[in-house]
């Protein structure tokens, strides 16, 4: 069980939106995490690396800001086994790369621009994630 947190979730969503708009206004870039990471996975050194690296470093440092502000680190719970994490993680990397985007790139940036590709992608990965959770929890009884 997790608690229903409409206000925190809405607030977090507003911050995600704010950062997404700010990245476009400052760097002219889509705040898609898959795309930002993929741009770092190049063999040639690129001037493009710096902002990607800085953005991801900021994301990784964000728990410290919350620790400073609230006095505690965010609590998370990971229901899946390490084996499931590795298989699911690998599929996530393959899928977001082939599909050119993830929840942030397609789900937020693309959908807000009413991109048909992003709407189709988001509907597809949401439906498949729902089906997968259903199978894991109610069919295979994980």
């Amino acid at each position, binding site marked *: 069980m*997790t608690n229903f947190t409409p206000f*925190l*979730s*809405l607030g*977090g*969503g*507003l*911050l*995600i*939106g*704010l950062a*997404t708009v*700010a990245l*476009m206004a*400052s*760097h*002219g*870039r*889509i705040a898609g*995490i898959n795309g930002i*990471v993929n741009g770092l996975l190049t063999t040639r050194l690129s001037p493009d690396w*710096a*902002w*990607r690296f*800085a*953005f991801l*470093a*900021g*994301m*990784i440092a*964000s*728990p410290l800001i919350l620790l400073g502000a609230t006095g505690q680190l*965010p609590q*998370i*719970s*990971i229901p*899946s086994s*390490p084996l499931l994490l590795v*298989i*699911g*993680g*690998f*599929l*996530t*990397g393959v*899928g*977001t*790369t*082939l*599909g*050119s985007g*993830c*929840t942030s790139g397609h789900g*937020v940036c693309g959908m807000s*621009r009413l991109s*048909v*590709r992003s709407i189709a992608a988001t509907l597809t990965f949401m439906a498949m994630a729902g*089906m997968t959770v259903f199978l894991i*929890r*109610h069919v295979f009884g994980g």
Partner: protein
Amino acid sequence: MRLLSAFAIGLVFGCGILISGMGNPAKVMNFFDVAGTWDPSLAFVMGGALLVTAIGYRLVFKMDRPAFSSTFSLPTKQDLDVKLIGGSAIFGIGWGMTGFCPGGLVPVLGLGLGEPLLTGAAIVAGMLAARLATRMTIKEQPAGA
């Protein structure tokens, strides 16, 4: 200034993820578990993010150019293809298995726990594998689409 702003925007993005619950796999999986312990919170994350972005992007695109760059870099593809839908389907299966989407995972890496690091390594391996596979396919069909 340019890099500092990217860092600061990453901080805000990461805080948003953590506050919203997108970084908590149990919450993500419960969002999808309509038939079980359903937690609809994440609909509010998407709603809030889309609201701000839809309005904000409209305003930003009225600017001649971004503050630190000469152009806005936007995807130009319009058509649906097998790669987009197939890739998204594969991502959905992976997301359902772990509860971690790439954006949800990155801020959680900062907690220094083993399981998120393991998941992150697997995601990067998947990205590299997909790029290798794509490159090989393109080489095999030089005249292909």
